[in-house]
């Protein structure tokens, strides 16, 4: 099974090819150049593998949460690539991709917090239970809230927080906030950002689970939907 994977949700721009468990990756840090960099990465991967688009089975992409513009670049590009090549798409959560990065840190059954900096003093986060073979189970829906609200929402669950694993650049924001629980730094990946490597791995899991969708399904999940106020007219 062959997948192309893209992610432009954060401070990384990345693309990956997945074939039967192996991942080829192109990845570079960038703040604003995702739109210029991502398609050349795709071309370079296809050239190295000597594949054409139509030989792929599907395209996986980081569907958010993350930078709004970045999410739209990945989603729009995925729509165009998939429609042009007659392929289905696999929208993969960027929080789940973060959790996957920390999988090696987390024995099966331990809680794992994926947490991204949403700017404006808020966090995107979801709490997972570490899985076998990428089958992440989320205990919570993906959420957007302030660091203090995150502490409140985790409530009793945070009691054993010293055992928690965590990934993402939102962790530092959370831990700097009032009344944040003590976490063990050795169990955290505070600099992790979502990458096409995990998008590819999780896309493969979703492909096997029959979750491929038509190209129109390549749309972002922003979490932050309250972006405009009606005018008082």
């Amino acid at each position, binding site marked *: 099974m062959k997948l192309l994977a893209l992610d432009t949700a954060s401070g990384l721009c990345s693309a990956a090819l997945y074939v039967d468990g192996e991942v080829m990756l192109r990845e570079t840090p960038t703040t604003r150049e995702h739109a210029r960099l991502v398609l050349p990465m795709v071309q370079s991967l296809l050239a190295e593998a000597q594949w054409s688009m139509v030989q792929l089975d599907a395209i996986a992409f980081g569907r958010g949460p993350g930078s709004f513009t970045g999410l739209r670049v990945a*989603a729009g590009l995925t729509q165009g690539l998939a429609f042009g090549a007659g392929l289905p798409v696999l929208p993969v959560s960027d929080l789940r991709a973060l959790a996957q990065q920390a999988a090696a840190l987390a024995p099966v059954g331990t809680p794992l917090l994926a947490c991204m900096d949403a700017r404006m003093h808020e966090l995107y986060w979801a709490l997972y239970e570490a899985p076998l073979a990428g089958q992440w189970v989320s205990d919570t829906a993906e959420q957007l809230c302030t660091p203090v609200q995150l502490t409140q929402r985790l409530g009793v669950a945070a009691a054993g927080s010293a055992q928690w694993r965590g990934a993402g650049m939102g962790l530092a924001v959370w831990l700097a906030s009032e009344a944040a629980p003590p976490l063990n730094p050795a169990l955290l990946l505070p600099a992790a950002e979502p990458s096409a490597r995990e998008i590819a791995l999780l896309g493969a899991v979703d492909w096997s689970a029959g979750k491929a969708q038509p190209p129109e399904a390549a749309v972002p999940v922003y979490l932050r939907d309250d972006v405009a106020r009606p005018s008082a007219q």
Partner: protein
Amino acid sequence: MALRVLAIESSCDESAVAVLDEERGLLSHALFSQIELHRAYGGVVPELASRDHLRRLLPLLRQALAEADTTPEQLSGVAHTAGPGLVGALLTGAALARGFAFSRGLPVIAVHHLEGHLLAPLLEDEPPPFPHLALLVSGGHTMLIRVAGLGEYELLGETRDDAAGEAFDKTAKLLGLPYPGGPELARLARDGRAGAFVFPRPMLDRPGLEFSFSGLKTAVSLAARAQPLDDRRRNDIARGVQDAIVDTLLRKTARAVEATGLVDVVVSGGVGANLALRTGLATLLRSRGGRVYHPRIEFCTDNAAMIAVAGLLRLKRGEGSFDLAITARAQWPLTDLNQDRHTA
């Protein structure tokens, strides 16, 4: 074989896709207007516009191909609006276009939105001759341009502040009309009395081809507040506004005709749909032995058919690109196209 281009427009609040064939002409054009989405906000909200484009464009693309009875194999290139406009909105169309073109191995043409407006009259049965004058009047632009040919644009004058369409919409808002009020204001003006309100016509008292419409808001605001706004007063004010804007556009156009000796004038952009402007220009140019050319009403406002025209002409000239950067420019002076031509 005749070239056939797919074009995508997403620079502001219209999502649109069209298919144009070099020999058979326009084969399809599909459009979704986001006006309802933005009405509650009193204007276009860029973030909401970008989000909506991403949901609308691919279904419109499928629709445009189906209505054109065209398969991707029959296409010669993919054009998309690359600017100027809302950069987030532009990027959605650019990403879709580049992805589709890459999968199909097709060249991409990054089209200047205003060049699309300038060339829109080429979709009609009687296209304008070159060189000609163009009056480009929309919600974002007010320009007089000497058009010698494709990519040969001399900017003769433009607005220093509000665009003509913006002046229509903003004064309409002062009269309590729902967004976007410009077309509704023009409708009310039909029942208003000429001369009941005379609003300022800035920049007419001095030479040159520059425009300024921002002062109109203050004048209309004062008139609207002076007495309670009944229907008659509202119609009269609307008439005064339209007369001030149209009169200014006509007199500047007349100056440009005199300055250039060109009597064929293209009027394009959303305000180009205004009947008073169209009629006034026709009369003005007839008396000078010329005529006015305009796109059909639906191609005055933003659409993908005009982007397809510009894309096809540039593709024909060998300007299709296989560059893989997804690009959009919020600002993009029209006259940069002249440089592009010389450096190409």
